[in-house]
């Protein structure tokens, strides 16, 4: 574990706006305690519908979402978001390792798929990549 890498990530990600969508309270609480190291501005949604509404209202840089949620699941939410915004970085954080889901959601256009329980290294790598990409785009704009 490269502490420097993590430190750099922490710095880079501070200013970004995160939309975190997760229906299970336990998962939300425990993941948040890891996410709030990197992001200051975290908006929470408790299901797909809630997440879509929140996205429309706000201007987010990155979305981290679960798949299995009531009302609207993660896949549908991603599709709907993509209808309006092709660019926004979306990372999936899910317990499902079903290949079908994986393919489908990849087609929808996501930056990364992290399996629960979280492998810290993978998480860091994906995050680094995503954050770098976001900052790059911001520089260009």
């Amino acid at each position, binding site marked *: 574990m490269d502490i420097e890498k*993590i430190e750099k990530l922490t710095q880079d990600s501070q200013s970004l706006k995160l939309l975190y969508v997760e229906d299970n309270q336990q*998962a939300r609480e*425990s*993941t948040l*305690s890891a996410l709030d*190291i990197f992001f200051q501005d975290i908006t929470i949604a408790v299901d797909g519908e809630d997440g879509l509404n929140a996205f429309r209202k706000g201007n987010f840089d990155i979305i981290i979402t679960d798949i*299995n949620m*009531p*009302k609207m699941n993660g896949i549908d939410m991603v599709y709907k978001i993509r209808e309006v915004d092709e660019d926004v970085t979306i990372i999936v954080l899910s317990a499902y390792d079903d290949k079908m889901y994986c393919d489908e959601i990849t087609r929808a256009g996501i930056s990364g798929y992290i399996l629960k329980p*979280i492998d810290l290294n993978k998480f860091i790598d994906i995050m680094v990549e995503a954050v770098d990409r976001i900052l790059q785009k911001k520089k260009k704009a």
Partner: protein
Amino acid sequence: MREKIKNLRFIYIFYFSAVLVLVGTLTIYTLFGETKNYIEEVTQKIYIQDTQDLAYNFAEMIANETGKNIYINLKEDENLREKLEKNLQLFISKRYRYIYVVDKAPKGQNYRFLLDGSKKVEEKSDFGEFYEPLHVTKFQEAYKSAHPVYFTQENAHGVWITFLQPILKDGKTDALLVVDFSMQGHKLIDNSLSELDGVLKISIYVGIFIFIIIVFFSYIDHKRVKVLESFKDKLEMRVRQEVEKNRQKEQQLIEQSRLAQMGEMISMIAHQWRQPLSAISSASASISLKAMLGKLDNETALEISTAISDYAQHLSTTIDDFRNFFKSNKEKQEITYTELIENVLGIIEVSIENKNIKLVKHLHSNKSFYSYPNELKQVLLNLIKNAEDILLEKKVENPTITIETDENILRVRDNAGGIPPDSMHKIFDPYFSTKLDKNGTGLGLYMSKTIIEEHCHGKLLVKNDEEGAVFTIVLDGKKD
């Protein structure tokens, strides 16, 4: 066994009577034979007596009619010869074949014909014709002893008796009267006797034949009985084998059902565990990160580790719940419906909610009763799982499972539209499944019904209401 004895007795009676008939016939035949012989003996004696009288009379007549020397008398007197021969002729018949008179020639051993009763020309001897009898000694004996002599002879024509009657002059034999008569029995007696003889012979043969047939058939019967018995034994063995196979099949069925349930359970456990596990990993990740960045303070560390401990506890409880679920109750325990439902939901609630199915509870029963808790939990789980499966399969909008209790009744409803009428009466049958995928073992409702009705002495009923299927459990709740 009784049949065997009956059969045996019957066979023995049969044998016995056949033997009896045979022995009887043989006895009769022997008796008949003896009687026949006796008849023949007596007949013979009668004939001989008759012939003796006849011959004696003839001899006397001839003696009276002739002078001292019969030969000379008859030689000279042709008329006398004729007269006497006519008398002899009277008695010639089938029985008295030959009647003639001979005397000894003075020279040599020859005999001469003096009188001949034969009617046929070619048979009739000339007077003085020499004659050589076959049984010369007998002739000589009669001549010498001056007493009648008779003997039997047998030739192609049957049995004959030759009777020799000496004709005496002054106490000495001057001539010999010979009568050959047939010993063939009187025609009528003969015929009857031979008829009877024939009949008896036939009945003996028939008796023997019947006896042989009886032996043959009883042998076949014996074999048949043996074949039947061995067949019966084989059949019994087959039946036993089949019963054993069926029992094993049922065992397999029960095993399969348990395994299927266990499989479902395990996937439920996995499901239940995923969240706490990922929560633990997230918590540990956050501790690592905070520590790496030097932002970990004691308060946060304590907070997070407490959370981890809670999550771990949750995992443990889940395991215990599942473990207990599978223990079979040996004795009835006091429970309430509410307890059962809470217990089961503790296992399955997460899964249901994950699938966006609404769970409605109307628990109106606080009554405690005696039954087998784990078995009931399994049934309840099965019913709820079935409802969940059908709601998902039919992709029902606003899927809802309703659980109601009232006194000693528990109902599980779904709003999946109901069970199709043609499946209704088969729904509790083993191996009957409406699930489209191959994972439906079809054993759940069958086992549930068996458990409720046979083990818990209750009832498991099904009907459709306007929204979907309704499964009802009714228990008597008695202590034993």
